[in-house]
C-alpha cells in the first residue's frame, strides 16, 4: 500500500470514529429508530389480530416493513447535520475520494441505526410468534439486508439534502428501491417458517447488498457534489 492509500484509510477511520463519538453524545437520537421499530411492530397484534397463526403468517412482512420505515426515519441524519454545520463542504473539498468518505459515513450510520434493529429483532420475532429457526433466519436476513438499506438511503439523502423539507420526497425516492430487500428478506423468513431452504433468498439478499456496496457510494458522492453546488 502506498502513502495515499494509507492516508485515505486513516481518513475513513477518523470519520467513522468522529461520527460514532457524536452518536454516543446524542444517545437519545440513537434510540428513536429502535423504539419506533418496536412500537410499529407491536401495533399489529393490537390492531389486526392477536391470533397466533395469522400473526405468524404476517410477522416476517410486518417486521421487515417496520425495519424499512425505522431506517427511513433515521436516514436524514447521515448527511443533513453535516450539511447544516458546513462540515459536508469540507468533506467534498477533501483530497480523498468522496465516495470512500461517504462509505465511511454510511458504515458509521449503519452501526448506529441498523445494528440496534438487528439486536432487538429476536424480541419482535417472539412477539410475532415466529419459531426459533425463523428468528435466526430473520436476524441473518437483517444482517445481510440492512447494509443495503443504509447504502441506498445514502444516495437518496445525497440527492435531497439540499432541499429544506425533504422527508416525503426522500421516502418516494428510496422506498421503491427498498423493494428487493423487502421481498428477499421477508421471503427468507417465510421459507424458514414452512421448513423450506431460506438460502436462495439469503444469497440474493447478500448479492443485492454487495451490489449496493459497489455502486451506492459512487452515486451518493456524485449526488452530494450536485447538492452542495
Amino acid at each position: 500500500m502506498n502513502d495515499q492509500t494509507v492516508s485515505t484509510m486513516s481518513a475513513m477511520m477518523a470519520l467513522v470514529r468522529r461520527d460514532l463519538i457524536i452518536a454516543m453524545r446524542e444517545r437519545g437520537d440513537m434510540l428513536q429508530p429502535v423504539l419506533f421499530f418496536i412500537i410499529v411492530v407491536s401495533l399489529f397484534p393490537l390492531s389486526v389480530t392477536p391470533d397466533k397463526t395469522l400473526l405468524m403468517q404476517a410477522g416476517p412482512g410486518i417486521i421487515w416493513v417496520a425495519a424499512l420505515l425505522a431506517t427511513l426515519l433515521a436516514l436524514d441524519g447521515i448527511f443533513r447535520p453535516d450539511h447544516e454545520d458546513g462540515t459536508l463542504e469540507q468533506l467534498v473539498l477533501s483530497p480523498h475520494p468522496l465516495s470512500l468518505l461517504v462509505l465511511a459515513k454510511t458504515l458509521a450510520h449503519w452501526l448506529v441505526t441498523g445494528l440496534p434493529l438487528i439486536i432487538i429483532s429476536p424480541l419482535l420475532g417472539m412477539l410475532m410468534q415466529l419459531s426459533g429457526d425463523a428468528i435466526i433466519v430473520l436476524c441473518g436476513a437483517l444482517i445481510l439486508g440492512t447494509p443495503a438499506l443504509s447504502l441506498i438511503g445514502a444516495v437518496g439523502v445525497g440527492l435531497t439534502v439540499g432541499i429544506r423539507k425533504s422527508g416525503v420526497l426522500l421516502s418516494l425516492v428510496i422506498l421503491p428501491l427498498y423493494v428487493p430487500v423487502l421481498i428477499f428478506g421477508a421471503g427468507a423468513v417465510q421459507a424458514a417458517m414452512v421448513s423450506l431452504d431460506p438460502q436462495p433468498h439469503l444469497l440474493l439478499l447478500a448479492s443485492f447488498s454487495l451490489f449496493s456496496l459497489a455502486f451506492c457510494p459512487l452515486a451518493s458522492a456524485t449526488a452530494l457534489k450536485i447538492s452542495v453546488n
Partner: protein
Amino acid sequence: MSHPLNPFPSCRIEATQLACLRGFNSLFEGLSLTVSSGNTIHVTGANGSGKTSLLRILCGLSLAETGQINWNGNNIQSVSSEYRANLSYLGHKPALKPDLTAYENLVSAAATGNRALREADSTATEYLRLLGVVHTRDRLCRQLSAGQKQRIAVARVVMSDAPMWILDEPGTSLDTEGMELLSSLMRRHIERNGLIIFTSHHGFDLPIDRLDRICLDST
C-alpha cells in the same frame, strides 16, 4: 510552532471568463483573475453581488456557467484531488461539529483533510493556543460563542498547512484582537509564499504591493 515556516512551492491560479448565474440573474460574467504565490486578492462588492459564489467556484465546490480555472496551467477539474490537497476553504459556517470539542474538531478535520492524524494530534493544541482559544480545547463547540468558533475555524485553516487559502468573510464575529491576529496570520502566510483569496467588509492590514482588489459591482 513545531513547524519551521518553510516557504511553499510557487503556484498560480488563473481564472478566465467566469460567469455565474443564480436562477435567471447573472451575478457576474466575463470575470478573469490571476493570482500567484505570495499575493492576495480581496474580493469586494455589495451584498448579493456574488462574492461567495465566486469563492465557491474558485474552490471547485460550484461550477461556473462558463469559463475555466487553471492551477499551475492545469484545469482544476482534471487535477481536482491534488488541487484540493493544497487548498483550505473557510466558508460562511465555521464547519465545526457542535457535539465535538474544539480539539476533536481540529483533529478530525485534519485527518479527513490533508494532514495525517498522528501529526495533527500533537499540533492541534498549539494552533488553539496560537488563536488564543486554548481554554476551549475540551469544551463542546455548541457551548462556544460565535467568535470563539470563528477562531477555531481559522485555526483549522492555518493548521491545514495548505498554500492556498480561500476565506469567505474570515473576520465574521471576531473582536479587535481577533482581527489583528487574523491579519498577522495572513501576513505570515503571504511571507511564506502562500496565496490568499478572501472577501471581507473589514480591511486587513496587508502589504499593499501584494494585494489586488476585485470589485464585483462593476462587472
